[in-house]
């Protein structure tokens, strides 16, 4: 009868030990798990840092050889190892500009339709359709552009443009040369189709975030739908719209496949929008695997570095704008 309390004491001590053990085990798994998540979060930063460092080191030979001249010379000659980036930079900016010129107004008008005019039962289907279209890979738009859109433009729009503006000063140089089908204008138009879903869906989201009270008040004092959009919704959503547009611009600048198919890959700056040109991403996609010689490869990586800089700045502005809107909405 005496040993029972002793036994109980032993059991309790053993329990204490196993309890302490499992506690310390839990504590260490806790610490390990936390460290793993922290490492992963830092890995995200390292990816971006790695992109920058690797591009910079890859671009170094070309940048050392050509210096700042790389940024503004047009010559692109793999045979003599002379490279200048102005043609691809020019092409990237012009095609993106054409794309935004079309996609921004059209996207905003569609967003206005979706938030103010569209019957309720149609809103969801159209909204979902636009979001699904935003996910379609760019190579699909590229192949469509190459086989269907470019020949179509060659037969219709381009001859019409040449005919109409052929004798108008200034404009005639914009639309000079034979209608090739492919070229800067075609690439810009394809980009416009590609970024349209992005701009539309972000603009719709920020338009929808306008407090209904503000809109109702405006309607209440007799504003027309346009006036409500122009003087209430747009001012309220301005930062978000700019963010969305910049996001679309970031996509347009870096878009590769949709452009590569239809740009024509010609390294020259020409005033005519109908002429074949090239963009940074199209040059890299077309030439990288065929690039022989270290300097050629390095020049292409330097192009990539330039693209990375441009898009980084544009996207950073975009995110900052969207962040500001988010903060204001709480």
């Amino acid at each position: 009868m005496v040993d029972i309390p002793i036994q109980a004491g032993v059991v309790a001590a053993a329990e204490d030990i196993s309890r302490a053990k499992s506690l310390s085990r839990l504590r260490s798994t806790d610490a390990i798990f936390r460290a793993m998540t922290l490492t992963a979060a830092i890995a995200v930063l390292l990816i971006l840092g790695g992109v920058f460092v690797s591009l910079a080191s890859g671009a170094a030979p070309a940048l050392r050889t050509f210096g700042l001249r790389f940024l503004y010379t047009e010559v692109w000659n793999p045979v003599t190892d002379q490279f200048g980036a102005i043609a691809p930079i020019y092409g990237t900016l012009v095609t993106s500009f054409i794309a935004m010129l079309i996609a921004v107004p059209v996207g905003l008008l569609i967003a206005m339709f979706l938030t103010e005019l569209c019957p309720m039962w149609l809103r969801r289907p159209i909204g979902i359709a636009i979001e699904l279209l935003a996910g379609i890979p760019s190579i699909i738009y590229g192949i469509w552009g190459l086989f269907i859109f470019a020949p179509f433009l060659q037969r219709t729009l381009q001859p019409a443009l040449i005919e109409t503006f052929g004798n108008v000063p200034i404009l005639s140089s914009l639309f000079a040369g034979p209608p090739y089908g492919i070229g800067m204008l075609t690439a810009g138009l394809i980009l416009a189709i590609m970024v349209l879903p992005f701009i539309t869906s972000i603009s719709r989201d920020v338009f929808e975030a306008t407090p209904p009270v503000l809109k109702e008040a405006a309607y209440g004092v007799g504003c027309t739908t346009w006036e409500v959009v122009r003087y209430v919704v747009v001012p309220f959503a301005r930062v978000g719209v700019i963010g969305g547009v910049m996001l679309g611009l970031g996509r347009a600048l870096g878009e590769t496949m949709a452009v590569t198919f239809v740009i024509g890959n010609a390294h020259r700056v020409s005033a005519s929008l109908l002429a074949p040109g090239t963009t940074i991403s199209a040059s890299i996609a077309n030439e990288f695997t065929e690039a022989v010689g270290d300097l050629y490869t390095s020049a292409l990586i330097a192009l990539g570095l330039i693209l990375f800089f441009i898009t980084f700045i544009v996207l950073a502005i975009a995110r900052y704008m969207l962040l500001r809107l988010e903060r204001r909405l709480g």
Partner: protein
Amino acid sequence: MPQLYAMRRARNTILMTLSVAATVVGLGWLVLVLGALLWNGFTSLSVQVFTEMTPPPGSAGGLLNPIVGSLMMTAIAVAIGTPVGILAGTYMAEYGKYTNLTMVVRFINDILLSAPSIVVGLFIYEVMVRPMGHFSGFAGAVALAVIVVPVVVRTTEDMLILVPKELREAATALGVPRSHVIAHVSYRAARAGIITGILLAIARISGETAPLLFTALNNQFFTLDMNAPMSSLPAVIFQFAMSPYHDWQNLAWAGALIITFAVLALSIAARSLAGRKVV
């Protein structure tokens, strides 16, 4: 005054008409793209596309090796990118919700989310292909994984933040350690959302071409060797569509149709799983 009203009404009518027109034109344009894709894709689609290898120009064949290559690289990319993405998202939503590190990671992640994918290809070329001395399917998979990470980080963080903190508090009050709270309460509550993110990431990479062009390169033969150049659907579409051969161009359309269906199916699955809009 009546003139003012008339002018305002007229302006309103003009802009509303423009708005409807923009919608019709915008959607119509996209319908044209999809219509052409369906038409050309279905006329080129046949059983051979799924059972035979890519042919030399001028003869019949299919897309079996690029389909297998795409599936393998996608699977490995998801296997690498998803854990990193989920863990990083977990840190941001669970441990460091209000820290500066989270703010910075979120900002950088959002930039990575829309960074040009061709730059990712150059990055992997520099860090993997050049040191290894040859193109490989594995390099392609890592390039795709770099694209998977930001998508998964974003959805994981968003979904974990939506989990009510009362659930975590209840578990913590029972003495459950933090990592178990996350694994058994937060993850379970956010499971549908996290899977949605993974599906969206797969949809995103299944059409990516640019990062594969100079990492996995291409391969006209069937291979399961991840250490060798590997063909993928997008890269083959690019090569075949740009070629002058009619058979190849038809195969490119068929491949484009397969990719589009895969992407649409994945996005629709993701959307219905989440029951709401994500990303």
